[in-house]
Each structure stands twice: as structure tokens, then as C-alpha cells.
């Protein structure tokens, strides 16, 4: 259901080869893993074992469909809700969990809140909290790709709310002007915390905003992983051919709270949630797999067991890791400490020694 809102210069579905049974199955496995992690992490947060969590349940179809359509050397500029992308890129849950905890093995060195991670070796840029900032950055990286003449793209991820940000406007405009190889992947999950999509903007779709920047925008059913895959694949091909950027609006729903700090019952009706759950991306894919004979309920149960065991193991391992060392605070502000930071570090260490600062 990739529905072109404004006609792209090449048909969007053109080049995509049909998905194989194997591919669909690997989508499914990752989606199931993503959902299971979500559920487990919400409970870890309630138990105080992690400080915060941003769930992605309901958005797995969009995330995995998109992730799979990208190539490993395409750079991802994520927001904070993109766990499906991280898993598809091959980041082990254990690695994510180290970040959620902020322990001594967290690659981010305990600097950021849970869900704000990045992995240079996976071309997965480190997320931040301010909404939209990754969008112009993705366009800049795409300009670098043009300069390097690489056959690759950047893809940036953001929500319906982020379309109101300064960076959305600037990034879309630069992408149009410089025809950059960029995929703007908007997960319209219908809510920006408590603000419904209709009150975020009066345009009838988010995809049509691309019109203002002179390139195509498409709406895709984000609960249909195949459709997402095809739309992204086409956008990627367009980009690599030098035909410029595409805005893709994947329509999904956020099942859970905005984050563990949020209570969605304050602002939205349960019926809306239930209606979307009937179109659950995982269920939809499972039914397809079952009906095509590739999958059985028994295999499904086994998969779930396997995933849960894997998660439990990761938790045990991550929780055994010691906390991040205090003096690491003085790393990475600059490549090398300035004399002033050197002095602050020395003073800090003295205070720790004297028990004035207690890690």
C-alpha cells in the first residue's frame, strides 16, 4: 500500500525484488525480539533496574521493514524510539542493555539516558533528545556521500511531532535544493506525547509536506512490513540513482506510553488503541507466515521461549557489570583534556579520595 501522494519522478515500486520466505522469517524474528524486549524493559523500569524506557511496540513493522530495505553502509540517523533498527543492524540486546543501565561496558560510557545510543561500526549515529536535530545532520552526511561519490544513502527517523521542528524544515529544504540521497522516514504514530496528529499540523498527510520542498512524499501502511520494505527500497534506489530524497510517512500507532514517565490514559481513548491492535504488524506477518505454511504455532512458541531466554541471559550479564568509573566523566568533552579539565579532574579525584564526592 505504498500510496504516492505526489508523483515521484520514477515509479516507487519499480526495482524492488520480491521478498523471499527467508527474509520474511527474519523480519518476523526481529520483530518478535523487539516486542519482547519492550515488554521486559518496561518491567525492568518498574522494578527500578533501569531508570527510564521508551517503548516501540506497534511500530515494529515500520522499523524492521525500513531497516531491512537499507544496506549496511547506509547511515542511520535515528531518534530515540528505533530499537527495531538497532536490532536489525545486529546490535545485541546485551549491548543495548549496557546502555540502558549505563554500566562500565556501555559504549556511551553512561552519558545518556536509556534509548539514546549509537554505534559507529554499524553506521548507526548516536541519538539525542532534542526533537528533529538528526534530520539536518542526515542531509549533511548525504552531502558528504555526494562528495565522496558513494553509492549509498542516509536515512533519518523521526515522529509526527518532529515534522513541526526547525530541523525538519531546514533538512527537507536542503535535501531538495542539493538533491541529496536521503530517506526521511517519518513514523507517524499518531501522537506526540499528548498531542494528536490532527493538532500537530493541518496538512492532511505528513507526506504531502514534501511538496513544499520539491520532492516526492509517500504514505505507507506501517503495519505492513512488506509495504514498508518496498517503499524504502524504491526510495533508496531513487536516491542512489541521483534522483534525490523521498519523504516516507509510515502510519503506525504507539501502543504503550510515550515513555515510562508518561500515562497515556490522561489523553487518549482505549478504543483507538484496540482498533490499531487489530492491525498489529507482528500478528499480520505471523498470519501470513502461518497461512503460507512456513510457520507453525509450535515454532512460534519455541521462538518466544528462545527470545525470552536470550533476554534473561543478557539481563543477568549486564547487571553483573560494575558501574561506570567516575573519572570517565572527564573523557570526551574534547579529544584531549584542556589544562583546565585536567585540573578539574585532579581536584575531582582528590575529592573522591577524601570522601567528599561519593560515587
Amino acid at each position: 500500500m505504498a500510496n504516492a501522494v505526489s508523483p515521484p519522478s520514477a515509479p516507487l515500486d519499480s526495482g524492488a525484488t520480491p521478498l523471499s520466505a527467508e527474509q520474511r522469517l527474519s523480519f518476523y524474528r526481529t520483530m518478535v525480539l523487539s516486542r519482547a524486549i519492550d515488554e521486559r524493559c518496561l518491567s525492568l523500569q518498574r522494578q527500578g533496574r533501569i531508570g527510564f524506557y521508551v517503548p516501540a511496540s506497534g511500530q515494529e513493522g515500520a522499523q524492521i521493514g525500513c531497516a531491512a530495505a537499507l544496506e549496511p553502509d547506509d547511515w542511520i540517523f535515528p531518534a530515540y524510539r528505533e530499537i527495531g533498527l538497532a536490532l536489525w543492524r545486529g546490535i545485541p540486546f546485551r549491548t543495548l542493555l549496557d546502555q540502558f543501565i549505563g554500566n562500565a561496558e556501555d559504549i556511551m560510557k553512561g552519558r545518556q539516558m536509556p534509548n539514546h545510543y549509537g554505534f559507529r561500526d554499524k553506521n548507526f549515529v548516536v541519538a539525542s533528545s532534542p526533537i528533529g536535530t538528526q534530520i539536518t545532520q542526515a542531509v549533511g552526511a548525504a552531502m558528504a556521500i555526494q562528495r565522496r561519490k558513494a553509492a549509498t544513502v542516509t536515512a533519518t527517523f523521526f515522529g509526527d511531532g518532529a515534522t513541526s521542528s526547525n530541523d525538519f524544515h531546514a533538512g527537507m529544504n536542503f535535501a531538495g535544493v542539493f538533491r541529496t540521497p536521503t530517506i526521511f522516514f517519518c513514523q507517524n504514530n499518531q501522537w506526540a506525547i499528548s498531542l494528536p496528529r490532527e493538532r500537530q499540523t493541518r496538512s492532511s498527510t505528513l507526506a504531502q509536506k514534501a511538496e513544499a520542498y520539491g520532492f516526492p512524499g509517500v504514505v505507507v501502511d506501517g503495519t505492513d512490513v512488506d509495504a514498508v520494505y518496498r517503499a524504502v527500497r524504491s526510495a533508496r534506489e531513487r536516491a542512489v540513482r541521483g534522483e534525490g530524497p523521498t519523504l516516507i510517512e509510515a502510519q503506525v500507532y504507539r501502543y504503550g506510553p510515550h515513555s515510562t514517565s508518561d500515562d497515556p490514559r490522561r489523553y487518549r481513548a482505549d478504543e483507538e488503541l484496540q482498533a490499531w491492535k487489530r492491525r498489529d504488524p507482528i500478528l499480520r506477518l505471523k498470519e501470513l507466515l502461518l497461512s503460507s505454511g512456513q510457520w507453525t504455532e509450535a515454532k512460534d512458541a519455541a521462538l518466544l521461549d528462545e527470545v525470552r531466554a536470550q533476554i534473561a541471559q543478557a539481563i543477568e550479564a549486564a547487571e553483573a557489570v560494575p558501574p561506570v568509573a567516575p573519572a570517565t566523566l572527564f573523557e570526551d568533552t574534547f579529544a584531549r583534556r584542556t589544562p583546565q579539565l585536567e585540573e578539574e579532574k585532579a581536584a575531582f579525584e582528590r575529592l573522591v579520595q577524601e570522601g567528599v564526592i561519593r560515587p
Partner: protein
Amino acid sequence: MTEMTLVQAVNRGLHEAMKGDPDVLVLGEDVGVDGGVFRATEGLIKEFGPDRVIDTPLSECGIVGTAIGMALYGLKPVAEIQFLDFIYPAFDQIVSELAKFRFRSGGQYPCHVVVRAPYGGGIKGGLYHSQSTEAYFCHTAGLKVAIPSTPADAKGLLLSAIHDEDPVIFLEPKRIYRAVSGEVPDGDHRVPFGSARTVVPGDDVSIFAYGAMVPVATEAAEALRGEGISAEVVDLRTLVPLDEATVLASVEKTGRAVVVHEAARFCGFGAELSAILAEKAFYSLKAPIARVTGFDTPFPYALENVYLPNAARVAHAARATVRSG
């Protein structure tokens, strides 16, 4: 008088102002139906309706820009920025427009907007939900900057801010939103701008603080008292205008100063306080001026507790100051 938390006092302040003046309105992200992510605007939409409690799109630029337009037209908008860390998309509107409208128009266009924002660390918010960048605003001529540290001051300073004629950046220490309760006067309680509050009187050393650092400084003063050091704790309450008279009088008495804030040290507000003392209280000073502040690194997540000044660090600095003089 009613006992309440600091965030409740903010809520009551908004309520009082809106009740008293139909031109007062509130706008921001999630301030309406949701009641604000910290519940500061809870219940206001029910009482005053969506025309006066406006849920906006996700754009701080739009929030402050439209608030300025409303103010020029005669309304009294109170804009909420969800976290101070997210104010920067509106920074141009704040420093280039809000701060300069009256001046650039030769006094024709006052532009009275209150921008409220929770600020500071202590809630495990990491890099982007913890910062204290009051110095940016203090350095911008044309802005007033208020930071309460108690429920009573939260209501009193907020009502003064809303009834001021100039733009006010109103920073709320989210770490103590609910940590303490206090008696808050009912009705139109106002605390004047430019009057610091002596929290603990003392003779040996002056400790200057604001916001969430006031209880930390007070705890330090208590510890010092046990060691026979009499520390005076001054809560600045408004950084612009600054109550220099109280600051100078305190140091003229004690001869020693410790400045405390959560913000990074370099070019932080504490530097200004030191500079004022080094210029105007020079001959009273018996010891170097100490600063106890955040470090000159971005704000961390896991190590938040070692980043933020604690009572032990404040006491340690005060002690050193007293001994060295």
C-alpha cells in the same frame, strides 16, 4: 497559608494569575489535556478552557514567537518550555526578539512574556533533561531571570513575573518540584524581584546559591555549624535583577565567599558573582572566592550524583576558605 510542593505552588500561581486577569494565558507542549509533563498546569484547561491553556505543536520557536506576538497585542502569555534543555529552537526569538523589543522600538513595544522552564539535574535525566544554562539568559540584556527555591517563592516570584512589565525567564528546579513541601500564602502573594533572602544568618563565610542548590547550601551550613563555623546562606531568588546590596553586605560581614551552582563553572553565573565581589568587596575579602559548581563537561547520566554539587563539597570549600583567610 496552604502546605504544598513547589510544583503545586507553580500551579497555584498560574491559577491565581489566570483567575485575576483574563489576558493571562498559558501555552506550550502538553500543557492542556495532559496537564504538563510535570503536572505544573494540571487542571487549568478544565477551569479556563482550551483558548487559555493552549496545547501547541512541537515547536519552541512557534511557542515563543507566538507568545511574543500575543504580548505585543496586549495579552500576558506564560509559555512553558518542557525542559530548559529544549529552549534552543526558540533561542533566536528569546535573545534577538523578546529581550530587545522594548529597546529597539524606543520604548513603544514592551514585550512581556514569561517563559517558564524546569531546569537542572537530580532526576537522572542525563545530557538533555538536566542542564542549567541560566548564564545565557543572564548575559542577555533585556531579560529578567528568576529561580525559586521554595514553594512560597515559586508562587510569589511567578506572580511577580506575570505582573512584571518586562520579559522574564522563570526557571523551576525540577529536582525539588516534589522533594519538599512548604506553607504558601493564599491569594495574590508576590515576592519582589531583586531581593535576595538570607536563609541562614552567619558570620564566618557567605554561601550564595539559588534553586535546587539552596537546600544543598543549607545542609552544608548545618554541617559547618557543628564544626563551629558560622556560615551565612543567601538565596539570590532573582539573578537579574541581582540584589547586589545583600550580597555585598554579607561579604563585608564575613569576608569570605563561596558561590554554588549546578551549571558548568566556566563563564557560569558564579563567575559574575565573583567578579562583582572582586571589584566591589575587594577590601573586605579575607580569602580567595571559591566556586562549587558542575564540571566543565556536558551533563552525564550514570554519574549525575558525582557531577552535581553536594553538601559535602560546599562544606569542604567553605572550610578551606575559612582556614585559608
